[in-house]
């Protein structure tokens, strides 16, 4: 059911490009005009050989001595052509840049959005750093390729065509020689390209590993210091850095060999052209000017062929990046928004129903077994049970962060899989244990729950939760910057913010997954009371290991080993002498300090 994010490795180079172009329609927009302009641009490149031939045959070696007038006219005409084609080159550059950068921005944003659309399970199959690199450095690689190589590639191919055309005019025989020298290269280059492509894929993977290793030193900074394991961490980073260095150098050596094979062929071609050309010229099949022009043309021909070889290597690198971005986009969002086809939940208290719901993590044991239960609208339910009993799984199924392996979860009778996300997320809010805070002010973090809320509404929400005293004691009140990941606040304070955020969102079904585990008891009790008052008339489900929450609930669900083993009001369950009674006895003993 859940899918890991792949590199889309099955896509070949051409398929990757085609798919990439389709995902970024801007790249193709106006491409026809750009290519025509590029064709005009390449004409500028045969100006020199043409001028050399004309100068030699009609000027320098003109019968009756050098003809200066012809040469100056040729040169003037050629200069005009250079100016015109240069202007076209400018247009080509600007058009290609605009098209490709707009296309890549679209691609980047699509991939980013898709990462958020992937299910929680799919997201957890890949390291965060590696996932981030798919919308950052991988796209940058493509962009850098377009900036440095893409335009040159287009022009190079044009130049090869134009140079060949002029060569054919001068001497079909010598043109055939040039091409014959190059044909074997094409075969060799393909082989090299494959090896180089593999090498660059490996480099990109090593970059991901390296980023992950480095991020440990950043994110785990306090643990590393507390345990004095700086050296061990350093060793792990060094290993990843070294693996990347080796991979990068390996790719470099392969690409140099590929390039050198082109260089070698270019050099040999020059020699062969000189030798064969001399024989042809001696035999009267070629003028000296044409032979000399050929030397320039061979350069014009071999230079882009070599350059193209190199650019194709860079292209491999970019394609590897492109493939990784496409890999994200092509990973099915297995917990998908039904969108237009779905239904909306009407406003008002929500009824929850689990109908023979089972859940197993992919390749893992079943963690929920055939759970059926109904939670009445307006009720306040506490779910308790030991760690690993399946409490959090219930919460995640209920909020459709995951879909059940079998069975159906219904809200107000509607299959959760058919409910539009826009409606679901507005009506049902989950507060996880570690509510992530953004590097922004307290105000902005609370407002995340409802971006349209005014500052007064945020303040009111905090007041209603009894948190105004806490906020006012902060150095800058609502305007306090919480630091990255909220690290300027304590874990308990971060939970307060997460709770206020959910409260501001004003859902009809509030699901708290150990949302106050790090808050001190008296604050928790205060919050509990505030929430009790405020959730009256709504449905609330709280997962907690502090049984004070259970005591206050209308009903307690006891989960054990993936099954609901007991349910009922606190007082009834305590009397039954079952699992709950034992949990509660242990909890009260703790409260008394026994």
């Amino acid at each position, binding site marked *: 059911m859940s899918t890991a994010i792949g590199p889309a490795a099955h896509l070949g180079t051409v398929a990757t490009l085609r798919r990439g172009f389709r995902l970024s329609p801007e790249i193709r927009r106006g491409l026809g005009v750009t290519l025509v302009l590029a064709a005009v641009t390449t004409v500028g490149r045969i100006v020199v050989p043409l*001028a050399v031939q004309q*100068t030699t045959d009609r000027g*320098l070696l003109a019968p009756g001595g*050098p003809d200066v007038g012809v040469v*100056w006219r040729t*040169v003037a005409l050629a200069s005009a052509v250079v100016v015109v084609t240069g*202007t076209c*080159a400018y247009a080509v*550059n600007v058009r290609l840049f605009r098209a490709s*950068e707009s296309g890549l*921005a679209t691609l980047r944003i699509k991939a*980013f959005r898709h990462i*958020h659309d992937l299910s929680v399970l799919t997201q*957890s199959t890949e*390291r965060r750093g590696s996932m981030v690199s798919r919308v*950052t450095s991988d796209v940058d690689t493509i962009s850098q390729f377009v900036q440095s190589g893409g335009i040159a590639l287009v022009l190079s191919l044009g130049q090869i065509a134009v140079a060949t055309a002029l060569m054919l005019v001068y001497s079909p025989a010598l043109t055939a020689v040039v091409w014959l020298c190059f044909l074997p290269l094409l075969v060799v280059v393909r082989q090299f390209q494959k090896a180089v492509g593999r090498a660059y894929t490996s480099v990109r993977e090593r970059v991901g590993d390296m980023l*992950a*290793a*480095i991020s*440990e030193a*950043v*994110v*785990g*900074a*306090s*643990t590393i210091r507390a*345990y004095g394991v700086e050296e*061990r*961490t350093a060793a792990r*980073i060094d290993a990843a850095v070294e693996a990347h260095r080796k991979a990068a150098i390996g790719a470099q050596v392969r690409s*140099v060999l590929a390039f050198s094979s082109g260089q070698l062929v270019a050099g*040999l071609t020059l020699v062969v052209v*000189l*030798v064969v050309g*001399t024989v042809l010229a*001696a035999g009267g099949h070629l003028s*000296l000017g044409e032979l000399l022009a050929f030397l*320039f043309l061979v350069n014009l021909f071999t230079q882009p062929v070599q350059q193209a070889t190199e650019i194709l290597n860079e292209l491999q690198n970019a394609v590897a990046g492109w493939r990784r971005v496409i890999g994200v986009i092509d990973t099915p969002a297995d917990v998908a928004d039904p969108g237009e086809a779905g239904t909306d939940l009407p406003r008002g208290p929500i009824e929850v129903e689990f109908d023979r719901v089972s859940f197993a993590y992919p390749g893992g044991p079943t963690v929920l077994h055939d759970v059926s239960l109904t939670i009445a609208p307006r009720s306040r339910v506490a779910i308790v049970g*030991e*760690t690993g009993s399946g409490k959090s799984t219930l919460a995640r199924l209920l*909020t459709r962060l995951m879909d059940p392996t079998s069975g159906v979860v219904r809200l107000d009778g509607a299959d959760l899989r058919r409910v539009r*996300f826009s409606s679901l*997320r507005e009506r049902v*809010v989950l507060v996880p*244990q*570690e509510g*992530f805070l*953004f590097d922004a002010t307290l105000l902005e973090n609370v407002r995340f729950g409802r*971006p349209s809320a005014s500052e007064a509404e945020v303040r009111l929400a905090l007041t209603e939760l009894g948190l105004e005293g806490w906020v006012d*004691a902060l*150095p800058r009140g609502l*305007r306090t*910057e919480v630091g*990255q990941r909220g690290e300027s606040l304590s874990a308990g304070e971060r939970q307060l913010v997460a709770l206020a955020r959910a409260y501001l969102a004003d859902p009809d079904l509030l699901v708290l997954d150990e949302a106050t585990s790090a808050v*001190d008891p008296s604050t928790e*009790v205060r919050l509990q009371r505030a929430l009790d008052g405020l959730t009256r008339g709504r449905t609330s489900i709280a997962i907690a*290991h502090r049984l004070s929450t259970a005591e*206050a609930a209308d009903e307690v669900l006891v989960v054990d080993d993936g099954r609901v083993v007991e349910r009922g009001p606190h007082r009834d369950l305590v009397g039954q002498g079952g699992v709950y009674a034992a*949990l509660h006895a*242990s909890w009260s003993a703790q409260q008394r300090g026994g």
Partner: protein
Amino acid sequence: MSVAAAPTVRRSLRIVATGVRRQPRWFAAAVAGSTVYGVMTALTAWAIGKVTREQVTPAVEAGHATSGQLLATAGWVGGVVLVNLVAVVVRRIAAGYTMYDVAAAYRRDVTRQYLRLPLAWHHRHPSGQLLSNANADVEATWNVFAPLPMALGVVVMLVAGIVQMVVVDPVLALIGLGVFPALFLANAAFQRAMSPRATRAQQLRADVSEVAHESVEAALVVKAMGRESEETERFATVSHRLRDANIAVGRTRGTFDPVIEAIPTLGTLAVLAVGTTRVAGGDLAPAQVVQIAYLISVLAFPVRALGWVLGELPRTVVGWERVDAVLRAQGEMRHGEERLDGSGPSHAVLRDAHYSYDITTEEGEEARSRVVHGVTIDVPAGSTTALVGPTGSGKSTLANLVVRLVDPERGDATIDGVDLRRAARGEVPGTATLVPQQTFLFDDTVRGNVALGAPLPDREVWEALAVAQADSFVRQLEHGLETRVGERGASLSGGQRQRIALARAVARRPRLLVLDDATSAVDPTVEQAILAGLRQSSAGTTVLVVAYRMATITLADQVVFIEHGRVVDHGTHAELLGRCAGYERLVTAYAREAAERAAVAGDEELAR
């Protein structure tokens, strides 16, 4: 070269020199290869001029080519080409080694700084930025090593080429001397226009990375709140800024590329025109005109390598500035010489400790926010002390002070009478262990996370896991101790991660164990078992525990009650209950709540 670009060039040359010192041999090899390449490329035109004059023209005039002429032609040109090729291979491979070796060296240096600098520094720097410093910025700094050796070879090539021109014909050499400086000037103007745009694009790439990082880390919350569209909007805003910046870069490049390309072409055409005039005047042979024209066209392309280097220089400077800021960052924790070599439980004291956090206000000003005000706590050897206080009262900061994750601004922290600032490196972590509130696991095996590289026998790892009540679930994992836990322990639940972190602390047999609400994600029965296990195994350990639960608190010999960063009272639990109203309110909150509820329920029943 234009004056405006000069500072960047000079600065970046200094940076390059710093890099060369890290890898002088490979760099020397690359430059040597490049020098040969430069000479040989210039000689190609000379060789072609030579064979045209001495072999080809006579053959054409004679109407037939001898094998000797053909052999000489092939030998001269082929020889130059082959030597050139070998030189290019040496140059490029050596340049690769230089670039990647230097980059790896700087990545190690930068990450060493991350490990060395204090937590306060980390708190001031977004992690996305730090990752980008170690990766993209290091790369941007040293990418210059890819074109640099070639550019140096090109300088040699130009000298060889100009000498050749002067030898052939001083008048045509003047054209060459005009073309190459014109190329330089065009390049310099290009760099000057490019530099600010490249800088902006690079900064925006870092911004995009920062937003992506934060948002992906927040994925669960974003999903739970249904804020995917808003987050995408936020990402789109920075992405579009980057797009515009890249397009601006493209426009600049598009303006200069054709100009830079046209200069040698026009130069070649000028050589043809002037050369023909000189030939007509009888000053020059036709083959020499072609030789110089060919020379300019051969040299024109490599000359652009100088442009590539100049193009890399702004990125080098910007990248280096960002890398260097990390390398030069101060505030490394200093260590003394004293050892904490006692045995048995430690005696920890905080005396009149003050602590403030650096905060950045909305206006971007640096300010300090004091969270600990003159706190004195004495944790006697072998005792268990509970630190109790409301959320946000400064308990975690105190825990950090005790194990010297941070230093007090005023006052001091000691263990066994030794001021922690005077303890030698490694002494504090070797003696005192903190289990933080927020668990951090490495992307390693369970064993690796518990032992942290110490050569612990299996038995001890299992013992530690047993104390932390983690042995049974670890046994159920597919590969037991060798199971990889994923990035930050992603494959485990919060409670499981906490128990592994606890086992990690227990396994070190610390003389002082500081638990900062370290069992918040564990349920009560498991917590009870953990506490019992700790009591048994920690006979030789002093324990300082940040706690809310009564069971934990009543195990303590002493309770310190904290509010608003100050010690309100300390004594035994019973003493505090009797005399400290705030304390009483806090710790009995649940019990009072339950009693009130029971009373309300009772009233309701009576009323029926």
